[in-house]
């Protein structure tokens, strides 16, 4: 019993109760199914808030640790080891926050096979929360891979016309990376006789050469997940075909698993390699930022646009992480959260209009702000947050990241930050172009077409507004008063950077 | 006395002939006979080595092998007969409906 009452165990496996309950509910009572799933995700959110309450921010170490022997025979030393610290607390909250929002957004969007949808969604939440809390390499891997399965079904069953293609591509791509990670995480596990991350870090001393290869292997998994340029090819397909809720979770949480992996594993576990390779990571991040932004501009499909913008935004996160200084890393963590909120909100909004018009072609829209003023205003705020307008959340993250990267001794080249800052202009270009083409200008052809079909474009309804309000609150909150967020992150990051400085040669 | 190397060489040749027979012939019975030839080549080797080491082991093994070969014959012939009954042919090349 003690095992199950650990706060972190509870927050991870609470949705499992929902899954079990859903199995026994009749599949034709759709609203019952929806509210059950909603209830359990809200419950998880509640538990995660309890975790936040228990979390002692100034303590830079793992907290609320749940540690039990799992497999400890035959030379194995695998533990059920969960813990939360400044690196993961925000992402935990982001996950538990976005999941109910996504489920709420499916009320009218998912009408078929509701029961399965909800089951998969709850399973997905288990995996995602587990990824952010696991402190044992093996446990992490299990959760990491597990998230793939429900997402695969979510895309493959409830997705768009090319859903199966997208689902398989998503699955194989991610699996390709994680396979190498599997080998790599066995490396320290065999050498160090343990899979516990804190133990491995504190024992340290992986030879520089080994660090290098293991770093690359982990990078393969994380870089695909992020996705870093040039491994991004699966993302637009997956995003375009995924149902709205899937896109939200995919962009909001799943991609963060990659950047989080870098932060949790690559940097502390292979500090020397991280320092040595930081310029390369920065290079790829910078290319990703510019490339993603350029591509986003050229898209005619709004979901693709947002997908490519994710490539660009997550480039910022990578850049910040490998600045390897407190500014960059804190900024990157906050930016993960921000991106989850902003891009999640973008996908939600795109989904809301798609539900009415069934097209994602930007061309056919136009002048929506006049027809649907509330929708337009919310979209504007979210879009501005995505392009990093000061006063909104995106800016805080991007600014601190660029600031950190600019003076980073690890990257040691202000050009990366300088060029990446171009990404901010390019973000303005594609976001504003998108906003203009959909919401400004004369009425688009879709309005006429809908009229012919007897539809009138409606503004956001109450449910949709309720979905968006918490997103907007976070957008403003982080933008205007990010202190509580930085307070959660700061101590752990300072500790991490200090540890880096003691374990590596290159950092002064 | 014939040197034992000759016996071993003979056994190797017999084995090879047997193996090639399996590869070349199309009649299931002849293939089967070739396999028997391979087994007997091994028997010859056993007996020769037994002679070299002055053991009984190798000779006893030869008897085991003969017994096993007999069992194989029983099963093999039954299979071949069954197939002949339905297909009226024991050409192994005609049995290629399973492939790919």
């Amino acid at each position: 019993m003690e095992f199950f009452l650990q706060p972190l165990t509870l927050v991870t496996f609470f949705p499992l109760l929902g899954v079990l309950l859903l199995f026994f509910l009749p599949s034709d009572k759709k609203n019952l199914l929806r509210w059950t799933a909603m209830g359990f995700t809200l419950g998880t959110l509640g538990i995660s808030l309890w975790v936040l309450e228990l979390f002692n921010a100034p303590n830079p170490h793992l907290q609320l640790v749940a540690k039990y022997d799992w497999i400890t025979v035959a030379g194995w030393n695998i533990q059920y080891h969960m813990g939360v610290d400044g690196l993961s607390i925000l992402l935990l909250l982001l996950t538990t926050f976005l999941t109910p929002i996504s489920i709420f957004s499916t009320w009218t969007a998912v009408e078929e096979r509701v029961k399965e949808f909800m089951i998969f969604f709850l399973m997905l939440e288990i995996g995602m929360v587990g990824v952010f809390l696991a402190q044992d390499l093996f446990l992490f891997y299990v959760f990491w891979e597990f998230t793939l399965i429900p997402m695969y079904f979510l895309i493959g069953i409830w997705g768009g016309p090319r859903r199966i293609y997208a689902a398989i591509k998503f699955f194989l791509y991610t699996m390709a990376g994680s396979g190498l990670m599997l080998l790599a995480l066995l490396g320290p596990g065999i050498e160090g006789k343990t899979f516990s991350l804190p133990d491995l870090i504190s024992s340290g001393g992986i030879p520089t050469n080994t660090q290098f290869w293991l770093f690359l292997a982990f990078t393969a998994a994380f870089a695909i997940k992020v996705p870093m340029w040039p491994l991004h090819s699966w993302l637009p397909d997956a995003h375009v075909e995924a149902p709205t809720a899937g896109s939200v979770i995919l962009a909001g949480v799943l991609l963060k698993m990659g950047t989080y992996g870098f932060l949790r594993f690559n940097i502390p576990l292979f500090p020397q390699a991280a320092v040595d390779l930081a310029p390369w990571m920065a290079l790829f991040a910078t290319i990703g930022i510019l490339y993603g932004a350029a591509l986003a501009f050229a898209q005619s499909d709004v979901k693709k646009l947002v997908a490519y913008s994710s490539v660009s935004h997550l480039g910022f996160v990578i850049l910040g992480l490998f600045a390897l200084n407190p500014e960059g890393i804190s900024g990157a963590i906050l930016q993960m959260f921000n991106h989850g909120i902003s891009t999640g909100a973008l996908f939600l909004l795109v989904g809301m209009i798609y539900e009415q018009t069934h097209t994602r072609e930007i061309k056919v829209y136009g002048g929506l702000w006049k027809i649907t003023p509330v929708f337009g205003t919310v979209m504007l705020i979210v879009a501005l947050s995505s392009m990093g307008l000061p006063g909104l959340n995106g800016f805080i993250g991007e600014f601190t990241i660029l600031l950190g990267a600019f003076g980073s001794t690890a990257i040691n080249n202000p050009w990366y930050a300088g060029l990446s800052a171009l990404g901010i202009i390019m973000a303005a270009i594609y976001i504003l172009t998108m906003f203009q083409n959909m919401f400004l200008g004369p009425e688009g052809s879709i309005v006429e077409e809908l009229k012919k079909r007897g539809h009138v474009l409606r503004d956001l309804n109450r449910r949709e507004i309720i979905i968006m309000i918490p997103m907007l609150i976070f957008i403003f909150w982080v933008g205007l008063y990010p202190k509580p967020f930085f307070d959660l992150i700061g101590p752990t990051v300072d500790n991490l950077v200090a540890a880096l400085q003691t374990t590596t040669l290159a950092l002064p | 006395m014939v040197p034992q190397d000759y016996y071993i060489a003979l056994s190797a040749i017999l084995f090879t002939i047997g193996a090639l027979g399996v590869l070349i012939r199309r009649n299931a019975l002849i293939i089967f006979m070739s396999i028997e030839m391979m087994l007997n080549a091994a028997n010859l080797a056993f007996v020769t080595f037994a002679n070299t080491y002055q053991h009984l082991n190798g000779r006893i093994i030869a008897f085991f092998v003969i017994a096993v070969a007999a069992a194989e014959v029983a099963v093999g012939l039954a299979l071949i007969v069954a197939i002949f009954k339905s297909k009226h042919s024991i050409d192994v090349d005609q049995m290629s409906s399973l492939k790919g």
Partner: protein
Amino acid sequence: MPPINFNDIEVLLPLIILVIWACLLLLVDLFIPKKHKWLTALLAAFGLALTLGFTLSQLGSESNGFCATGKPSICMVVLDGFSVLVNALLLLTGLLGVALAYGYLKRMGIERGEYYTLMLFSISGMMLMAQASDLIIVFLALELLSLPLYVLSAFARSNSDSQEAGLKYFLLGAFSSGFILYGIALVYGATGSTSLSQIFEIASVGTSSLLLTIGAALILVGLGFKVAAVPFHMWTPDVYQGAPTPVTAFMTAGAKIAGFAALLRVFGSAFPNLSEDITPILWALSAATMIVGNLLAIAQTNIKRMLAYSSIAHTGYILMAFVPYGNPEVAPVSIAAGLFYLFAYTITNFGAWGVVIALEQKESKGLQISDYAGLRRKYPVLAGAMTVFMFSLIGFPPTLGMVGKFYLFRAVLSGGYTGLAIIGVVTSLVSAFYYLRVVVNMYMFAGEPKTDNEFWLRFTIAGAALVTVVFSLVPQGLFAWASRAVLKLF
């Protein structure tokens, strides 16, 4: 003639019981009317369970049996942790095989009592293989397990595919026994003995002779054939497709376990000194098997064939663990990993074949992957279980397959064969292609599959799925077991 040694009997006790039971069953079956063949099945299962009980009671004991007079190290059979676990696994395979077969035989109209007897005999051959400590016993056990399998493959007499499968298997099997026998002869020639312990002693003294190495290589070929390693695998898809499905299920697991047991036993205890020569060959075989098995599986539309190639691929994975067999530090991990993976594979595999059997209709209908379309809607539990099996075969959590692969890779990496491990990972990725195809069909396409409600089949499938998931979450016990499977060395 030496007096009967009860110790010898004890070493082989489960095997002896099983053989006697099989012989009795053969007789009893004559008196069981055609309508009540379930009784035969039940008796066979009971025999297997009984033997399993005896086998498990042997856990922890270690001894030799049928030793040369005055030379207690030169023995015919051996009892050790490894053999007990392999035997237990084989008996489990048998039980699952019976469970899968019962309804199927009835449905297909080929219900005859000999089926179970033949299975019991084959299992006794397999068990003997795990316990053999003399090459000639290995050969005899090989024949004992193979001959009933030839017959079983052709068991559906009216089905020409089944006949073809039987004959192909028989011809090629006999062909490969020729190699193994000749290999034994050469080893005998090189060392003057067929006893594993003596071969080990002699081989470790002198420099390794070419004769010995070639002999060992030929034995490897023969065993490689049994476990379906590339390039000795070509019979596998044809036979697995043609044979009645429960036989196939039984073969994929049983013959593989026995083959690997012999491989480990022979090479681990007799030829560790040849590892310098043999390891590269094993490496190549393993890599080729993984690659060819997975790539050709992609092309299949028939689920039996696909699973056959998948079985080849899994041979490659398991072989991977044995590549560092000559490294005394890694060898125990290798054995444990291999054994664990065999267990994981057996459970998953039986589950998957169970679903295949459930959907198979007369005249080889319902065997296309596209016949699985819409399974989710009509039979959600079946589809769910199949999904679990497919993910387990890919090696995805939370399934046994994933834990097994984890264990395997650990062994390989411990031995320092990173390249092989990478091939393993990449080919698993390739394998996801075709396993997912089944899942896609079940969940994302519409169709009207049909299946009969057969309790034991359903029970087996559900049980396998449950075990696959649950034991992946609490594998501690299984790991402990696997690690007890130590080869008794001399």
